[in-house]
């Protein structure tokens, strides 16, 4: 089974490192991290992730804008995006069926289990893993 490719875009270095470690520990995911929002688009084009975990409040370029850029890029248009942010409250997420601003959303501080659950729910199915 092919590992799912996850791109994490978040300015919190320690957070991205630990999340990457946790996800990779499962053996199910190949993880790439970008700590600068401006680099997210380039990284996504190269990495072709099955899902992008995107922080919202980042210096210079907010997550919402990154999401818009990705959706405007033809080859990335179908890449699922999940916001992972401290800017929303957990009950807001729950009350809106996990959707905020048209994108699925996880409220920080989240456990690894919550992140994995969201990935499994929203990640693009890989043709190879369908079998």
């Amino acid at each position, binding site marked *: 089974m092919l590992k799912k490719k996850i791109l994490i875009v978040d300015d919190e270095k320690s957070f991205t490192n630990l999340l990457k470690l946790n996800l990779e520990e499962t053996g199910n995911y190949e993880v790439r991290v970008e700590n600068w929002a401006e680099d997210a688009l380039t990284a996504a084009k190269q990495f072709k992730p099955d899902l992008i975990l995107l922080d919202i409040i980042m210096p210079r370029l907010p997550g919402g804008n990154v999401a818009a850029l990705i959706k405007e890029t033809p080859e990335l248009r179908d890449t699922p995006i999940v916001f992972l942010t401290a800017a929303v*409250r957990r009950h807001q997420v729950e009350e809106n069926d996990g959707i905020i601003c048209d994108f699925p959303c996880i409220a920080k501080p989240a456990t*690894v289990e919550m992140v994995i659950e969201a990935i499994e729910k929203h990640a693009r199915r890989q043709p190879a893993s369908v079998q």
Partner: protein
Amino acid sequence: MEKTTKILFLGPKEEEHRRLQDLLQERSSRNFDLSHVPDLMAGYEILSQDKFDLILLSVSGGADDGVARLEALHLRFPNVPIIALGDADDENFAVQTMRKGAEEYLIATQIAGPLLRRSIRYAIERHRAEEKLVASEAFYHSLVENLPQNIFRKNLDEQFTFANKNFCSVVGQPLENIIGKTDFDFFPAPLAEKYQRDDRYVIQTGRIFETVEENVSPAGDKRYVNVVKTPIYDAKGNIIGIQGIFWDITERKQWEERLQRANADLARSEAALRKSHEDLKAAQAQLIQAEKMESIGTLAAGVAHEVKNPLAILMMGINYLAKKLGDDDALSTILRDMKEAIYRADSIARGLLEFSSSHQLNVSPADLNSLIEETLRLVRHTFTEQRITLVKDLKPDLPQVQVDKNQLQQVFVNIIMNAIHAMPQGGQITVRTYARQLTETTHFEGSRKGDRIWVGDRVVIAEFEDTGSGIPDEHLSKVFDPFFTTKPTGVGTGLGLPVSKRIIDLHGGNLDLRNKTESRGVRATITLKGHRTTYA
């Protein structure tokens, strides 16, 4: 010097004139000046020219003729007293002359000097007194008849003995048809009974009775009548009847009513003015509060974000360590505690956000009792754990309230949890609901309290009482301040009451927390405006 008494003798006989002259002159200390005319025509003439103190009128020679002359003379000169001189010793005739105006009847042949002089003196005195009496009577008569009031008198048998012109016209009968009749002859039975009851009160007590009667005229409009009834006494002081005076005061009443209405209008506009002033004050306070909350909100959102990010890092670290450390009991306990600490910190950040963000209420009509019952179901297990007994006193059929059900439940939970925390050794929580009309003005005090609840409003009240140690006086003013808490770290966030207060404020209600005066413990009172349409 003695005044001369001028006397006119009116009679045909010269010898009689002379005799009278002699009689008057006889040993008299008084001066008499006696003139003589033979007939009525001459009498008229001299009387209209000269002033006489008395007339001696001969009525002899044809009784009828004499009386007729007397009558004519008296009618023409009522101010001059007349003594009739006749031949006949006839009592009936004498009385007849006196009825027609004579002061005295003397039998001409029997007159002696002293008798004549005394009769003259008395006749003049009597006439003078009578004139006074007549004048006085005329004065009172004219008063009674011309006063705008209706005046009547009745005897002890309730029969009318007198009525003035106004009363006659009210009854619609001439006086002679009223005298001797009773109220039952002129008024409907219930009215007549009432009138006579009032009369009896005056007769039995000797007191003045005064009242304002409200009558409906045949035309249908209300008439007010002021009635005064007083007892009538005889010379010995016994009550022999009543006198009533009444008059229409409808117009005065109407003006009074108009004045009252105008006063009420004035009071209303004053109240409206006061209310709009209070509204304005409240709006201003709310504006200030809103601005304050907005800046706190921005700050809180920033703080929450900055706190949550490190928490997220810690969570990821703990997750990673948990996996790496496997099943080591001691270490996983440590990690669990660390995770709990993260949740706690997160809940404080969340509470801060809830407190500061401006809430949008999702209001709908609700039954306060059902909401409380639902909330109690949520916390029931805690009651058992903490050895808390619950006493419920929920009045049925409360007016509905317009509330955000979730938020109000959050308030109830906060207050109940506070009560539980106040009784670590267990105790009793009493939940009470009732509706009432707001009568006191304490809710106007302070700028925030009771912004939208007014005296006279129907309010629904929920009270929660505990049997804990109460709130120290120095803490009472701070219980609604964010982050003020006396609970051990980890038990309270210091935001429960501020958030609750804010939610109730947003509902236009009032949350009040105070120590009970009758026993130990705290009473939290939530006052909400009753929904108008449900108790119409």
